[in-house]
């Protein structure tokens, strides 16, 4: 299903029509696309108008220092679903995990797509880019990731950084970052880069962003971290169905207590939901089946930068990440020692003052004083 399509230059509407799909079918397509982009259903007419003229974009998918989890997320759903629909509308010209071609032929396909669609193609990146020592830690066909990204980005219309590694550096970037891993945005500054973070990202969000580009020929509006606001505009906590428990102060305190069984809030078990912006709580996973909190596990905050370095996954958000107990103990001990020393010095001054005592006598009481 994800093979490069022959480019036929038709718009989406034309293509659907050519396949004998009715206008009603097109409407259905528009409605589901709106839902996928997390846009309001009231946007359907605008989407319909846009899709009338939308052409299939060429997509080049670059996989760098990554685990293929992002691609898995997108492709390994147990049944063909919503995402397929939109992926059928794009021309995936290069994806070294999925494409049939390999070796030089694969790289040729990439170069061909770049040449043919110069200035118009979309680059999707998953994985971080190691930059230390000239980027030697990860190469494809002898080309470093760094070089390939720069080269491919050159003629791109926009770049979609898929997954937390591409968006924020992810695990490669986590301390001590031995390869000098960097996110896409740290390397490419002259092209629009959108971050679809998550480890992995929600498949619908990836396709939603693609759909947006396909529909409106531009990237959706983004937040401060370059993520599409429609999906990352609200925190997990804001949209969590367990939120009422948080508000009422009902918390699970271990994974097998009453609270856990009753589905209470997982804050005390380290849920990072309040500080994590993503669409899991509404879009959910596995065809809308569930998401981690619904399955009884606290949110890890995987769509946020540095989530690997934000203290333990099971450490509540309100707690410090370092060993504060030690600091407290050392501080008190050191303070007590300094206090004792300062106090002794004060005592010495006091004794000295007592030695230098000025004795008040009747002389001090007479008129002249």
């Amino acid at each position, binding site marked *: 299903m994800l093979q490069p399509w022959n480019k036929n230059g038709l718009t989406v509407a034309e293509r659907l029509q050519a396949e004998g799909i009715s206008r009603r079918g097109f409407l*259905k397509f528009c*409605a589901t696309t709106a*839902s996928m982009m997390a846009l309001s259903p009231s946007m359907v007419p605008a989407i319909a108008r846009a899709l009338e003229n939308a052409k299939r974009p060429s997509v080049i998918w670059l996989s760098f220092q990554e685990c293929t989890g992002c691609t898995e997320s997108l492709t390994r759903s147990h049944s063909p679903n919503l995402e397929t629909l939109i992926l059928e509308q794009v021309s995936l010209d290069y994806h070294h995990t999925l494409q049939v071609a390999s070796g030089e032929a694969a790289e040729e396909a990439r170069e061909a797509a770049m040449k043919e669609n110069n200035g118009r193609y979309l680059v999707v990146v998953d994985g971080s880019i190691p930059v230390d020592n000239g980027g030697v830690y990860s190469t494809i066909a002898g080309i470093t990731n760094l070089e390939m990204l720069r080269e491919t980005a050159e003629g791109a219309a926009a770049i979609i950084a898929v997954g937390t590694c591409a968006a924020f550096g992810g695990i490669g970037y986590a301390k001590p970052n031995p390869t000098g891993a960097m996110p896409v945005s740290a390397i490419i500054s002259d092209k629009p880069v959108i971050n679809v973070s998550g480890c992995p990202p929600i498949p619908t969000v990836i396709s939603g962003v693609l759909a947006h580009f396909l529909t409106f020929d531009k990237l959706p509006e983004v937040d401060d971290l370059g993520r599409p606001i429609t999906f990352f505009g609200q925190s997990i906590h804001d949209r969590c169905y367990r939120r009422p428990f948080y508000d009422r102060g009902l918390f699970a305190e271990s994974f097998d207590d009453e609270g856990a069984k009753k589905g209470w809030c997982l804050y005390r078990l380290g849920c990072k939901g309040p500080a994590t912006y993503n669409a899991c709580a509404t879009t959910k996973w596995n065809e809308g089946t569930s998401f981690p909190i619904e399955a009884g596990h606290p949110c890890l905050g995987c769509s946020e930068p540095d989530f690997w370095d934000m203290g333990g996954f099971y450490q509540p958000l309100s707690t410090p990440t370092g060993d504060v107990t030690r600091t407290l103990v050392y501080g008190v001990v050191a303070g007590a020692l300094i206090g004792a020393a300062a106090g002794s010095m004060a005592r010495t001054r006091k004794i000295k003052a007592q030695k230098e005592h000025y004795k008040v006598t009747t002389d001090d009481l007479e008129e002249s004083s």
Partner: protein
Amino acid sequence: MNPAMDDSIEIEPTPCAKDRGNDLPVLNEILHALNELLTHDRQTVIDIKSLPFGPVDEERLSIALGQGEVAATIHTLGESRVTETAYAGIWWVEHRNEQGAVIAKFIEVTYMPDILKAQHEDVIVARQKLKDALETIKLNGA
């Protein structure tokens, strides 16, 4: 021992009844939408996927809305089902793909969901098709 393998642990079904109720605000929103329809002739579409539903919230909403008089099936790009709820003017619109999986689900508050109506473009095609058909019949029937 892996707790998951321990038969003595009884995992309760996630309760929902009194503790939750994310369906209630939605019902309120629907009521508001009905008002809008009646007073301003404005229709409302709610995307179920955009709601922070917990387990069985959707079921509860479905039960609350009940079954109405109309149930229609549309066959294009997979099946779509349009069913009226027990409350006139409130509809479920459910889109499935060719493999039968639900890909989008809406509640529409309107006199008639647009997708049920024959579309202008389709009618133009239909006119041509019927014309062609008639020609064929004439030719053949003569």
